[in-house]
């Protein structure tokens, strides 16, 4: 009996051992699968710029030690469309975007940005931002000597709402959205009297713009740099016929930043 019991018992033990082995295998498989998923998640997190794992650390280590004020100055390039209703009207009236034969009208153009940032909530800030958008200079044969010239440059003054994620206390990624007015100053140089001198006529067109931007920033406690890209929609300037020029378009900026002020 005993042996039978033992046999029975040992059989039981073998079954349990088998179950344990199976459980170990299953557990190992689960662990492996979990590890693979974890690795994938970690890779994904790394790929997304540390969206998942560092968020806990972020709560402990706020970006630039939680200082609430920031300054940003950026330079870069912008892309606008080759033509617009506004520029086609200029062409109708004899103006040319003269840059020589080798100029590509779709080539990127200089952009500037400046901003003041105030962090108002954890991971959320408000900016007052200005951007130089498109600026162009057109010429027309006046038939009177000097060419007629028409030039303009567009500036924005936006309030931007920024949501940011402090991946490390020295590194953050962000997305922002803004609206505000666009001011386009234009100058027309034409000869309108029998005098040989040209007359300069200045005008300011006030329009609007909306912007969506994203970026990343690396910073020590007080100074850093950033990369920012996005898109502006800004139908300004407009002419007397209502034809507008999209002065916005895509932008890519590189800049310097500064941080100061007491933590929240």
């Amino acid at each position, binding site marked *: 009996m005993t042996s039978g019991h033992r046999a029975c018992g040992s059989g039981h033990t073998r079954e349990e051992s088998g179950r344990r082995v199976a459980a170990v295998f299953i557990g190992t498989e689960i662990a492996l699968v979990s590890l693979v998923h974890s690795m994938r998640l970690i890779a994904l997190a790394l790929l997304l710029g540390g969206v998942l794992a560092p968020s806990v650390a972020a709560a402990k280590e706020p970006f630039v030690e939680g200082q609430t004020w920031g300054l940003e100055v950026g330079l870069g390039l912008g892309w606008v469309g080759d033509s617009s209703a506004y520029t086609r009207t200029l062409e109708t009236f004899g103006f040319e975007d003269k840059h020589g034969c080798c100029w590509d009208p779709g080539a990127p153009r200089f952009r500037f940005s400046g901003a003041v940032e105030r962090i108002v909530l954890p991971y959320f800030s408000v900016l007052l931002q200005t951007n130089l958008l498109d600026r162009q200079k057109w010429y027309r044969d006046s038939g009177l000597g000097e060419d007629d010239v028409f030039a303009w440059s567009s500036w924005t003054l936006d309030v931007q709402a920024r949501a940011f994620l402090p991946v490390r206390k020295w590194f953050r990624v962000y997305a922002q959205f803004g609206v505000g007015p666009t001011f386009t100053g234009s100058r027309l140089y034409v000869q*309108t009297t029998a005098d040989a001198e040209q007359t300069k006529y200045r005008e300011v067109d006030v329009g609007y713009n909306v912007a969506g931007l994203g970026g990343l920033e690396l910073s020590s406690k007080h100074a850093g740099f950033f990369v920012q890209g996005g898109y502006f929609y800004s139908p300004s300037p407009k002419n007397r016929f209502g034809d507008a020029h999209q002065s916005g378009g895509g932008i890519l900026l590189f800049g310097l930043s500064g941080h100061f002020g007491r933590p929240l």
Partner: protein
Amino acid sequence: MNRAALLVSLMMCLASVAACETDLVDDPGFQLWCGEELCAWDLEEGEIRKVPTWHTHDYGVDLVGAPVLLSQGARSSASCVRIEVTSKVEAGAMVTVEVDADGDGDVDLTVPVGGSERFVSRVHDVELDVSIEGVFYLRKSGQGEAVVARLRVSEECGW
């Protein structure tokens, strides 16, 4: 940029320099006003008015009522002529550009300016010997609004 592209660009630059345009009329943009009159054009008949176009200070000439006739003598002679007209003309206004090539009083060429609801620019290239005595006319014969922002007449001698 590779050498071939550079060569093509240089050739295009040279071609653009080589092409020449000699204006045959003064003030093609109707910009010069001496009071209520155009300084460079003679109003032979009818009434005209200075009006803004795409910009408050980029003017055009409004040919008021009908008939209206503006004229200007040729600045130089030419054997091939390009006529560029930028205008907004209502149907029925019947606007034409006319050329008296040798100044004998007979019109040798008439170019109709088509109607349009907004400003459009049209170009006409014609082979015509215009002497220094030649005269160019802008005529409106029918009723309806007609604003001409630009009438450029030039000699085209591009290669």
